[in-house]
């Protein structure tokens, strides 16, 4: 009887598991990834519905209510200009996401393009591009972003440009490596034997096949970018007042640290939670999409 069961088991075809099922199983293997996803969902919702959620205006304060301690009216207190700290925190999510996504898109498109071109073309093109990428990598990321935004001046767009230049070498490096591997596959050879153009090979084969790794990289980068944006605005070169940015809130609250510690502490917790969430989700995606990247990203 038992023997028959074993034989039956062998006769049956392996269970069919769709790609999506496998993806979700691995992705949610660690419960904490779900926690990360929830935080990110809350972040996006907060940013979208900021005007509805914020109890007060983030830019105009009531001077009569300057430097209030946390209370039922002002959950996180008010700053020196009497602005509600919670409202500024809520609006700050918009700044963080705008800079994060803006820089990821700009740096991703340029970085991936350069990396793919260098890896696919090889020879002198490869050498020139990759040497420039190496040189950009020689600068500590935050230093390069700081100097570029200092030179360009403050403002959202300039911060995005500065952070993009500082982070694009990362995409280019990874994409370069991926292109070199994918290029050697037989299906690329077959496609070329059929007379496909270089552009077709790059966009129809190399780019789609590198997508899983790129999604992982982008997710992890989003966290790093939000951290970098906060650092720039903390130093005073990023988003300018009166717009709300978490890093600037930490810097502003510093002067009242002894009497009003929450002014500095609460935006920092927001930054940490968001960056933590992006890292968690990025790690989950990596395990589910491309486990080979473990230890590299």
């Amino acid at each position, binding site marked *: 009887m038992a023997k028959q069961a074993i034989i039956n088991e062998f006769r049956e075809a392996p269970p069919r598991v769709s790609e999506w099922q496998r993806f979700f199983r691995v992705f949610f293997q660690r419960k904490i990834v779900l926690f990360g996803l929830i935080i990110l969902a809350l972040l996006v919702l907060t940013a979208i519905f900021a005007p509805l959620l914020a109890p007060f205006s983030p830019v105009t304060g009531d001077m009569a209510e300057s430097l209030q301690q946390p209370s039922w009216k002002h959950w996180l207190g008010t700053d020196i200009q009497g602005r509600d700290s919670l409202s500024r925190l809520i609006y700050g999510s918009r700044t963080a996401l705008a800079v994060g996504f803006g820089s990821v898109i700009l740096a991703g498109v340029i970085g991936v393009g350069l990396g793919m071109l260098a890896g696919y073309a090889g020879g002198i093109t490869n050498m020139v591009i990759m040497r420039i990428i190496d040189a950009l990598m020689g600068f500590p990321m935050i230093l390069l972003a700081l100097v570029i935004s200092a030179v360009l001046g403050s403002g959202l767009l300039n911060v995005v440009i500065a952070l993009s230049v500082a982070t694009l070498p990362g995409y280019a490096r990874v994409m370069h490596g991926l292109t070199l591997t994918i290029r050697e596959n037989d299906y690329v050879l077959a496609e070329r034997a059929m007379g496909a153009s270089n552009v077709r090979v790059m966009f129809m084969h190399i780019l789609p096949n590198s997508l899983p790794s790129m999604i992982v990289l982008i997710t992890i980068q989003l966290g790093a970018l939000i951290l970098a944006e906060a650092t720039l605005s903390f130093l005073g070169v990023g988003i300018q007042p009166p717009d709300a940015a978490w890093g600037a809130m930490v*810097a502003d609250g510093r002067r009242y640290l002894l009497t009003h510690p929450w002014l500095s502490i609460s935006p920092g917790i927001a930054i940490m939670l968001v960056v933590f969430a992006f*890292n968690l989700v990025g790690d989950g995606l990596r395990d589910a999409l491309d486990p080979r990247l473990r230890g590299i990203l």
Partner: protein
Amino acid sequence: MTAYILRRLLGAIVVLLIVTLIVFFVMQLLPGDPLVIFLGQQAGSGSISQEQLEQLYIKYGLDKPLIVQYWNWISGVVQGNMGESIYYHDDVGGLLLQRFPITLDLGIKSFILYNILGMGLGMVAALRRGKWLDTFSTILSYIGVSVPVFWLGIVLIYIFGLKLDWFPIASYHLPWENFAANIHESVLPVVCLSLMGWAVIARQMRSSVLEVISQDYIRTAWSKGLTERAVVMKHMLKNSLIPVITLMGIGLGLMVGGQVVIEQVFAIPGIGRLLITSVFNQDYQVVQSTTLIIAFIVIVVNLIVDISYGWFDPRIRYE
């Protein structure tokens, strides 16, 4: 090995050259008249006549084509002449030299601390997989990459400086001036600076040890009857260090970036603080040279890491 070192050295020189071009190019992006920017407000306010302005143009070589300006700047830097700060009215090289020991002091302490702690913790986490130290290490590595360094500095100042009064804040002595005070003052900034590197190294070390642990030579070492100490120290440690070594260079880049911020938070008069102050003073001569020097240091350290990598792992040399 010599060929490998030469190849790496050549590569590093090319990269350094491009770095100088990038720094020069970024500075060209400054909007407005470079002379007005370099001289500061006095030139813009009209207190200098047109004639004087033109003389200054010639004096600073700004009438020359860009390529000549670049050459003049770079040959000056090589000879130790980095121009004059418009804010401090002092030689930029001198300013940097004055602050360099301070930055180096904190940097070396953090570098040593995060490498030892990171490797140690990663190793123990892998050997005691699933135990509380492993969980602690995982949590720490997430916190380390998520926490904003500047915020951590402020929180530490609040708790240990203002509330508990355990450590002095906003003071700094060089180690050879007052060693005890220096150590006391370094604790908080060094903890902040090393946390991220600590996290990154521990994470890599853990997965690296886990990989080595299942290798045949480790089983052989155990079955030969070697002590745990011998297996761990002689066979595991050496082999799992290889991927970690590359991270030392990356960690350094992270740390130097953090240092710029931390010197600002703790009011430590190092190169990082000089850079930030100069950004706000629009003292671009200083910004330009400081950026170049920092990039130079990072690249040289990475070169050393690369070369030692080839020494530890001979397979790398023939790639």
